[in-house]
């Protein structure tokens, strides 16, 4: 078979970004008829790669492409087909790293390169869960971003009650952001436990990451902050809500991230005020779960996504 038989598909281009030391991998959907030059970047959801659960990103990208938008589905370093690797034993550790902005630096480079390479005028960052968080944090620091369209944005850490600091060794799920402040955990009690030292001495625990967590926890306690709330994301959100940037937050009604979001909004007046001033920036898909798995939920999601983009860029 000669090379002509394996030409890349015309409308779907394979992208590689050399951001040393990493090679970042993505797929760009190029519209046959671009309406304006708006690009949407879908950052990968948590530890999952650029396709997303039930190919959610592929289906969304095809829809946007058909409607004249450029779309980039991209793997951050350590994920999918990009180079690197997490040195983590548990998923909540991986999610904790992402929630602390592990991919933001790379995300900013991706935004700038994508905009330049396709001569785009407007950039929208988006993604599910960890992908929306990465996009939001990158938007806070990057003026190239015109809009944020986040779905299932997590405002609470996944790993603050990680197994090292937990009362039961099995590792129960973290509490809702609003609930946790009422039952602070004494780390000093944990440090006295034999099991913990056994784990440390046998290398079962990543000491630097746990020390980092401990430091953050102590800082939060000293500042009398709720240890489960991701203040970095809250600050970025408040900043963007008070800026001229466009922003839409889509949640699923049965997603625990919505429950967390409401609890955080209730506990932070600045955020509540900023959201009130931007009326209509939150949309809730009735009955839907975190991954928007049923076709009727997905249709509604597609509709609000597309309508929002059109309203932002082509009808105003």
């Amino acid at each position, binding site marked *: *078979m000669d090379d002509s038989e394996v030409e890349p598909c015309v409308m*779907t281009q394979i992208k590689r970004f050399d951001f040393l030391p990493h090679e970042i991998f993505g797929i760009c959907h190029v519209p046959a008829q671009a309406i304006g030059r708006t690009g949407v970047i879908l950052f990968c959801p948590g530890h999952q790669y650029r396709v997303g659960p*039930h190919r959610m990103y592929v289906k969304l990208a095809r829809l946007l492409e058909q409607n004249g938008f450029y779309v980039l589905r991209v793997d951050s370093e350590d994920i999918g087909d990009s180079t690197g690797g997490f040195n983590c034993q548990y998923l909540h550790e991986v999610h904790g790293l992402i929630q602390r902005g592990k991919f933001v630096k790379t995300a900013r480079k991706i935004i700038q390169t994508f905009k330049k390479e396709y001569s785009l005028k407007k950039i929208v960052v988006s993604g599910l869960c960890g992908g929306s968080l990465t996009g939001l944090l990158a938007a806070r620091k990057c003026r190239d971003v015109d809009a944020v369209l986040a779905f299932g944005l997590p405002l609470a850490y996944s790993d603050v009650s990680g197994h090292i600091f937990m009362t039961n060794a099995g590792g129960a799920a973290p509490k809702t952001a609003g609930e946790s402040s009422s039952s602070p955990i004494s780390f000093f009690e944990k440090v006295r436990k034999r099991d913990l030292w056994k784990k440390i001495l046998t290398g079962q625990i990543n000491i630097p990451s746990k020390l980092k967590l401990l430091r953050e926890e102590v800082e939060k306690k000293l500042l009398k902050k709720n240890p489960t709330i991701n203040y970095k994301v809250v600050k970025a959100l408040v900043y963007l809500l008070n800026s001229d940037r466009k922003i839409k937050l889509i949640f699923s009604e049965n997603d625990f991230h919505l429950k967390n979001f409401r609890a955080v909004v209730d506990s932070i007046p600045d955020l509540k005020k900023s959201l009130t001033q931007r009326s209509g920036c939150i949309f809730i898909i009735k009955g839907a779960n975190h*991954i928007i798995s049923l076709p009727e939920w997905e249709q509604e999601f597609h509709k609000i996504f597309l309508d929002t983009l059109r309203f932002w860029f082509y009808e105003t």
Partner: protein
Amino acid sequence: MKRPSNMIRAQAGSRREAFFFPNAEGANLFGIAHIPVKDSKRVGVILCSPFAEEKLNSHRVFYNFANLLASRSFHVLRFDYWGTGDSDGDFERATLASRVQDIISANELFKVRYGLDIIIFVGLRLGANLALKAASLTETSYCIAWAPVIEVYKYFFDLLRINLSTQTLQFKKIVKKRGDLLGDLKAGRFVNIDGYNLTWALFEQAEEYSLTNILNVLNGNEGFNLFLVDIVKNIKRPNRELNQFAEQWPKTIALKIISLPPFWKGGIPQYIGCPESLFEYSLSWMTQKLNPVS
């Protein structure tokens, strides 16, 4: 206990090519070839993905295994079946037969494009059954099956449970039991499993892809070699059926039981990107089998 590295630090020994290539219907399939820099073997390995969300969950394991193999002078191809991953098509229109055809297309492309003499199929879960089926239709003599699905119909039937839990979320009760869902499928309707639409065509073809049926065909192929890997939680409680296959066909099948969390499943607390024991035993089997020809 040693902390898992979750990454292969051997990428310097290989390069990658990503491309789209046509399947038998002319639709675009997405593939990534890992090419060894020092090419001492003319041996290629095709990695065959599992089904639905199991593919998503095991993506990084395939990536790392491909890197490892390429650093040991194997050519490796990872690709997406039609209707999955970055390939063209819709999931609900793909069948088991179309997936096998895609493996055959990938096999043809891979051999010719890189001038390879020998191809080894490696599959995980349902991907292992598909790889074995494709091997029975091609001249492929070497296969590795990681935790293959023994009864494919039962596997699909068990997946229907996911729909029941979505119903509970949606309606606060189960409106349709699994029997009703099968009725829907037979009537040509889709049944949604975590966002993937199952079809009756999958159930109809399932029997043909059960491990017993495929192995019965393959066992007649002279010189066929299979490395069967039983991945279990507790090594003292292995899978009886897989053991029976290995006892029945000792010349064809080598069995290894490995204790590992089921990394292809969502909802497990561990992050597993690089199951070292699985990689090591598989690589060691390949090297041992291919020594006379490399």
